[in-house]
């Protein structure tokens, strides 16, 4: 009998510990699928953040390094510079990458560091209990914006992907969602391209993955998926934000 669907080899055989309706598990499964398909598990090193995303090291069967909040891009730089032939990826949430770690991610992109970054954007601080993130939408209620995010008080939801696209060292930037089968297929393709950008030494690659957080949004999983499509996607449009072919790393 032909196997048409199975658990990716690189996804460890244990249940995800994420809340019902969270898309971390989906995102991590897709990353594991791509690692399998590219046959790179033996030479891949993951870098974990702080926040709900940190649990990735429990589920993906590759070597992992986990450090301080927001510093994954710097840690990944240290690893990649020490071991240039390994495949290094980081996995961060929006608080980690777009608030405390903004400096590290901008400079890793600007240096054109050959790493692959994954950014799970759920418009809220998840693990700490639902406070405002840089990506929180205008009007969105959180634990620290009980009356909704007001631009004159709290500024605007930050579009990190667009920001990193203008860095000369970034080679591939895409934003995806996982709310429909069609989006999932597109997301997997973007994840594959982001790994290939590194493997072909084109420069920095990032895939931003929009994810619902039903627990902290105070919604059911279905309501959260609908809210993501109705409110997040219009502000964070899906698609490839940057695709660059130049092999600028071959200068020396």
């Amino acid at each position, binding site marked *: 009998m032909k196997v048409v669907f199975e658990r990716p080899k690189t996804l460890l055989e244990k249940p995800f510990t994420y809340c019902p309706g969270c898309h971390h598990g989906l995102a991590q499964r897709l990353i594991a699928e791509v690692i399998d398909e590219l046959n790179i*598990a*033996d*030479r*891949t*090193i993951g*870098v*974990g953040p*702080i926040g709900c995303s*940190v649990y990735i*090291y429990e589920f993906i*069967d*590759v*070597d*992992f*390094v*986990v*450090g*301080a909040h927001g*510093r994954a891009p*710097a*840690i*990944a*730089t*240290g*690893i*990649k*510079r*020490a*071991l240039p032939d*390994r*495949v290094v990826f980081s996995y961060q949430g929006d608080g980690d990458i777009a608030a405390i770690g903004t*400096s*590290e991610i*901008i*400079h890793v992109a600007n240096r054109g560091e050959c790493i692959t970054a994954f950014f799970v954007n759920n418009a809220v601080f998840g693990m700490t209990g639902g406070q405002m993130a840089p990506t929180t939408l205008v009007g969105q209620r959180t634990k620290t914006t009980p009356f909704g995010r007001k631009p004159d008080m709290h500024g605007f939801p930050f579009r990190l992907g667009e920001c990193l696209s203008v860095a000369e060292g970034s080679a591939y930037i895409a934003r995806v969602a996982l709310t429909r089968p069609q989006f999932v297929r597109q997301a997997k393709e973007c994840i594959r391209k982001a790994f290939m950008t590194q493997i072909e030494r084109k420069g920095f690659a990032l895939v931003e993955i929009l994810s619902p957080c039903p627990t902290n949004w105070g919604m059911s999983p279905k309501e959260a998926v609908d809210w993501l499509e109705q409110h997040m996607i219009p502000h964070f449009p899906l698609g490839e934000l940057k695709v660059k072919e130049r092999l600028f790393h071959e200068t020396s």
Partner: protein
Amino acid sequence: MEKILMRGNEAVAEAAVRAGCRLYFGYPITPQNEISEYLSFRLPQVGGVFLQAESEVAAIHMVYGAASTGARVMTSSSGPGISLMQEGLSCLAAAELPCVVVNMSRGGPGVGNIQPAQSDYFQAVKGGGHGDYRLIVLAPSTVQELVDLTYRAFYLADKYRNPVEILGDGMLGQMMEPVVFRDPEFPPLPPKDWAIRGKGNGPRKWIVCLDLDPKGLEELNLKLWEKYRRLEEEDVDYATFGCPEPEILLVGFGTVGRILRSVVREGEKEGLKLALFRPITLFPFPKKALREHARRARAVLVVEMNLGQMLEDVELAVQGEVPVFFLGHTGGVIPTVGEILEYIHRLLVKEVRA
């Protein structure tokens, strides 16, 4: 062996390369920039990596990443930059990652100034960042010792899987002295079987600096503590100089240590019976040895370029056996041999012989 005239900062850098350091991440700050500048051309010569980071915060986490792979890696900075690195140092200690951090310290607090000072002592030896951890802290007092202790720093970092700080100051970093680069010779080290290099055909590994289970985290802390206890047994270092049974035992580290050598010599000419006890490892602090030396003196005088930081460790070590006095300058002011001698004369008349 050939003697070379070298600036302290460049000597540290060359010693690091000879000790096998192949990666350096740093951010400019005076008075230690010659370390980065030297390594920016020297590391590529040996196939190494020099990378100027966007901040000290990024630099120390790049060190964390590189150290995870088992490579010998270093960063350097000065006071304000070392403050920014505390987050990473806490993580490095928690993850038991070896690395070397050079602090050519300057006047503080705040941005302070760029003159030599020793006011980072507490930060260096008491942990510095959050949590129950310590750095191994070495305090050189000559450019030659900067070289030798840089070798030792890499060895100790690997032996104990712990970050090592070399605590110098702006004077030591900037001064030029003749140095000899002997080949580093140390006992064999355990294999770095913990290093993260991609799992290959084996089982995967991970390095983390968190443990959400209180029992697990306590276990880690106890393991770290056991390591620090072992350090105290096996790797305490200090130097002594002068009269075996002095009236006053002078205690000072680093730059002050070399000034106090002159005080002992000059004092001898004036008929004073003085000796110097210079801790070389500030953590582990040479408690037992200092106590034994203090017992043979009538008083202890601690001199520092701060307002009494090592003083607290000296008092703890001496345990009231003899009176402990203190003379300090801070903010980048360097104590002179003349003023220390004058202070000693006054101390002898008013306190010690009274």
